[in-house]
């Protein structure tokens, strides 16, 4: 059905939609986050769910204490190297479709602790991240903005075809390797299937 016919029908009071749109509309308005916080960003995440900012307006007030019931992982805070395997395992235990918001400077890059010996330089080294929010910590408005960005992403996902999202693709993996504790660092230090270092070309 083309756009012209659709608008013509809506003028006559007939609402038309596709199965995929209906599916995405339902999904984007009931994204349930996994209830866990790693550091100070979690305080802002809690503030976002409370009455003043009210994440419930976006259908995401139900923070689930178990990964079995969650759709969204908000990595709120510093991911230490000791914590990284647990975070990856929790991500693996979530059913698909699943999304990740990396909240704050630490979760996206290590932040102020980047050169520390015990802090992972960004959770995107191990699991695919959908939305990054900078900030230390980001304000609740920033988290809400990230949430709306994620909703827009869900809205445009197609049900079939080559560009269909990971959870509809039987070949795409749903679990990612959990790093092991090594003698000097996590092993492997990053997942090359997920993370590619941006190529930096410096001016001479």
């Amino acid at each position, binding site marked *: 059905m083309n756009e012209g016919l659709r608008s013509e029908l809506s003028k006559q009071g007939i609402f038309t939609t596709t199965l995929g749109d209906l599916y995405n509309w339902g999904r984007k308005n009931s994204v349930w986050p996994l209830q866990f916080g790693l550091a100070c960003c979690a305080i802002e995440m809690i503030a976002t769910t409370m009455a003043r900012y009210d994440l419930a307006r976006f259908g995401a007030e139900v923070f689930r204490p178990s990964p*079995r019931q969650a759709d969204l992982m908000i990595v709120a805070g510093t991911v230490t190297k000791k914590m990284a*395997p647990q975070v990856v*395992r929790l991500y693996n*235990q979530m059913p698909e479709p699943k999304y990740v918001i990396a909240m704050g400077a630490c979760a996206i890059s290590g932040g102020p602790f980047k050169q520390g010996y015990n802090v992972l330089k960004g959770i995107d080294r191990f699991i695919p991240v959908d939305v990054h929010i900078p900030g230390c910590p980001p304000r609740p408005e920033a988290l809400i903005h990230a949430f709306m960005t994620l909703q827009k992403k869900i809205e445009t996902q197609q049900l*079939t075809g080559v560009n269909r999202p990971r959870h509809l693709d039987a070949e795409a*993996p*749903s679990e990612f390797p959990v790093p092991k504790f090594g003698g000097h660092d996590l092993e492997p230090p990053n997942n090359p299937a997920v993370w590619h270092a941006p190529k930096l070309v410096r001016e001479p």
Partner: protein
Amino acid sequence: MNQPDPYLVIVVFLVAATLFAVAPLLLAWIWARTFSPRKPGPDKNAIYECGLESKGDAWVQFRSEYYLYGIIFLIFDVETIFLLPFAVAFTKLPVGAFIAMMVFLLLLVEGLVWAWRKGVLKWS
């Protein structure tokens, strides 16, 4: 014209209720079969333990003494709900209320003494 069977309404309701319950499940099943593939894995099927690797089985037996401990704890836990307003309004209470509260406490302490003598509090 024949009057319909008065029980027919119940049958209609029964069928509607069953359909109402089963139809979403059926739709979800058809949806899953058509579009989203199943992807089980070792981590996803593992016992959930806050992201840590679980040690042992999730189906463990608890000792029955634990249940008795729980009951005794609960009695004194609930008791504080009554004791707090009693303590707050203590100076304004008549003598009768004080005696009534002491009787209430005595009954509970009696229960504790009985359990104690029975050896419930001994954790062997």
